[in-house]
C-alpha cells in the first residue's frame, strides 16, 4: 500500500489536538538533534485530577507510534521507576486500551488515550499489578502509598 497511513493519521491527530485539547494536557512531536520534527515519537503530559492525591502536578509521558499504527496501539510510557501500581519498572503502562489483544481499537484518539491514563492515575486496577512496591503499598498500607505518591508529585508539580 503506497499510503503512509501512520503519518497521515498522526498529522490528523496533531491537527485535532491543536484545535482542541483538554485543559492541563499537552502532547507534541519531539524534535530530532537537527531540529527536524519527529512525528513518530511524541512527548505528552497528563495532569492529576483535582481533589485527588495526584493533583497539582503534570506527569510526563513518551508516546511512540509503531509502523502499524493505527492498526496497532502506540507505546505510551511514564519515566523509569514511576510510582504507580499499574506501571512497570520500565515505565510501560498496563492499561487495556493500550493493549492490542484487549481493548485497543484503531479509532481511539490520542485525546481518549491520555484521558484514560489520567483516569488510571487515581483509580489503579489492583488486579493487574505491574510493579511490586506501589502495588503492595496500595493494597496493604494506604498511608505509605499516599506518602510516596505525594513525594513523587513534588518532582512533577506545576510551578506557575
Amino acid at each position: 500500500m503506497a499510503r503512509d497511513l501512520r503519518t497521515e493519521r498522526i498529522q490528523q491527530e496533531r491537527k485535532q489536538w491543536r484545535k482542541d485539547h483538554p485543559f492541563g494536557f499537552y502532547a507534541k512531536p519531539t524534535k530530532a538533534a537537527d531540529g527536524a520534527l519527529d512525528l513518530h515519537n511524541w512527548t505528552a503530559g497528563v495532569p492529576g485530577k483535582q481533589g485527588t492525591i495526584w493533583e497539582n502536578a503534570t506527569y510526563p509521558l513518551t508516546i511512540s507510534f509503531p509502523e502499524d499504527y493505527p492498526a496497532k496501539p502506540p507505546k505510551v510510557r511514564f519515566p523509569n521507576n514511576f510510582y504507580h501500581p499499574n506501571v512497570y519498572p520500565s515505565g510501560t503502562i498496563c492499561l487495556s486500551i493500550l493493549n492490542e489483544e484487549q481493548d485497543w481499537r484503531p479509532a481511539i484518539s490520542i485525546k481518549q488515550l491520555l484521558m484514560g491514563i489520567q483516569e488510571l492515575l487515581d483509580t489503579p486496577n489492583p488486579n493487574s499489578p505491574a510493579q511490586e512496591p506501589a502495588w503492595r503499598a496500595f493494597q496493604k498500607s494506604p498511608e505509605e502509598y499516599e506518602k510516596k505518591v505525594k513525594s513523587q508529585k513534588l518532582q512533577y508539580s506545576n510551578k506557575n
Partner: protein
Amino acid sequence: MSDSEEYEGSYEYDNSDEGSSLEFSDVDYGDDNSLNELEHEDTHAKVMFSFPTSTTSSGIPTHRMKYQALCIDEIQKCIEQKVKELSDLLQLDIGKCLVLLLTYGWNEHKLLDDYVNCKEQSNLLLEHGIYDKAFPSNLNCLLTKETGEEVICSICCCSPEPSEPMSFFSLFGCRHKFCTDCYSHYIQTKNEGSQVIIDCPFSDPKCTLKVTTLELNVLSDFIEESIKQPKENITQAKLISEDEIKQLYNLSSDEEQFDSNGNVINQFDDDKEENEREVTSINDIVYDFHKAMLKREREELDSKRNRTILSKYWYNVSNQYCMTQVKRFKHCPYPDCESVVEFLGFDSDNIASIEEQISLLLIPLVRCGRKHQFCFACMEVSHAPCPCKVVEKWKQKCEDDSETLNWIQSNTKDCPKCHSIIEKNGGCNHMSCTACNYQFCWLCLGDWSSHTNNYRCDQYKGNDSLDGDSVRASLERYMFYFDHFNNQRISHDKDREILEKFESRIRELQIKAGVSWIETVFYKECVTALLECRQILKWSYAFLFYVPKCRGKQLVEAAQWQLSDKVERLSKLFADTPASEVLACKKSFLYIKSSMIVAQEKFLETCIDIFADPTTMISFKRRLNIT
C-alpha cells in the same frame, strides 16, 4: 533377475506365479503406494495406524494408535461442516456461528448448554459481540460510496473530497463506517498477528461487535476487485523495469570481462564460462531437491492464501482450531511442511492415552499427508525401534559423554595392571604407572622388561583382552554402539544427499525416454524406504545399548543383521546403477526394496516381542531409571 523382461509390462500379475510370500508383499506394497500417489489429489480422510498389524506375528499386541493425515484445507472444510451443522441447529447465520465457536474456544457443549438455557438468546449473542437480527441474503449494502465533509473515517481521519467519493465499509450490526483501505489494513494486521476474533474498530463508545466471515467476504471481494482494475499500469511498470535489469546485467558482465582479463573476451570463451556457471547453479538447486520443492510449494500456498484477507483469515481459523486441541492435532515437524495429523484413538481397548502407550514402550509413529514419518508423542523424526524415553536418555548421554569419551578414547590408555586411565603427555614409550608403579610399553602394553629399545616396539599387536567390569569396558560398550549409531547417521545423510541429487537426473531421463512420470515413482519410493530403514538401523543401536542381556536380544540382533544386510544391498544397487540404466532396473530395485521392507517389519516386531518377557521389561526400565 534373469526374467526381468517378462515383468516389464505388468509385474503385479507375474509375481504371483513365483508364489513366495516375499514376492506377494512386494506386490501389495508397490500397488498400495502407487494408488496412494494417484489418490493424493482428493484424499478422503482415511484411518491409518501407527503399526502395520494389531499384533506381532508371535501374538504380542501392538496397541496401535489410529490417526488420519490432513492438510489445512481439509481442516477448514471440517470446520465449515461443523459451523453449518450448528447453523442449522440454532437457526443462525453461518458467520455468527463461527464467531460463537471462536469465543467459546470451540467448546460446543458449553455453547449449546448456554444457548438453550439462557432466558434471552439475543442477550447472549450481543454479549459475544454478535448482532441478534438476521443478516439479509445480500450484504452488499455494507459497502457505500460517500461524499461530503461530514463523513469521516476515524482511522485515517480523512473525509472524501466533494468531487471524489470514497468507499466505506461497515458491519451490519453497528454501521460504524471506515474507509475500505483502513478497514482492510486493520484486518490484515489482525491476520498477521493470527488473531481470529476481530472487533469493529470503533471506539467512542467502544463497539464490541465482531467481524463475521459473511461480512469479511464482502470486503474481501471488493478489495480483490479494486486490485484487479489498475492492472495495466502494473504491467507497464514491469516492462520498463525488466529492460532496466537487462541493461544493468549487460553493464555488469562487461565490467567483469574487463576486470578478469583486461581484454575483451571472445564469444566462444564467454559461452563456455556461462555453461559452467549454469552447471554449478543447477547443482546448487538440485542439492536439496525435496527441501526446495517443499519450500516452493509452501510459498505458493502462502501467496495463494495471502491473496485475499478472507482466505488468510480462514487459514488462521483452521490453525487456531488445531492449536486449541493440541492433544488431538499435531503439525508435521518437517520444515516447510504444514500437514496435520489427527489423533483418532486406539484400536485396542486396553489403553486410552498416548502416555499409556508410551509407558508400554511402544511408539505412536505417524505419517503426514506428505509421507513424513514422525512420533506423535515427542514430535521427533521417526525413532523406531527406540521408545521416546530411550531417545531422550540417549541424546542426553551423547551430549554428556561423547566429547569426553572421544577424548579419553583417542588420548589415553589403561594401565595393563591396575586399569588406571593414563594420558601420555610426552617422552618415550617406556611408561611407568604412577598408581601401581608397573613398567610397561605404551605401544604393545606389554611388560617393559622384554623391551630393549626405548623408541621401537616389535611386539605391537593391538589392544586385546580387558576386564569386563573396568570403566573402559563400559565406555567401550558405549563407544561401540555410539560408533555404529553415528555411522548409520552419516550413511543416512550421505545417501540422502546423493540419491536426491540423482533423482532429478532420473526425471530428466524419463522425459527423454518419453515414458510416463508414473514409471519413475518407484525410484522415489525406494529412496524413501532406504532412508527410513537407515534411520531405523541408526536408532536400533541406541535401543540395543539399553536392552539387557536376554534371549530376545539375540533375536533382535539377528533381525537387525538381516535388515542391515538388505539395506546394504539396496544401497549397493543404487551406487552400482548408472542413472541411464535405473529405469531398466526397476524390477531389481523393487525386489530388493520389498525384501528390505519385510526385514524391517520383522525387525520392528522382534523389538516389541522382546518386552513380552516381564523381567526384560523391568530391567530395561531400570536401566533407563523409569518405574
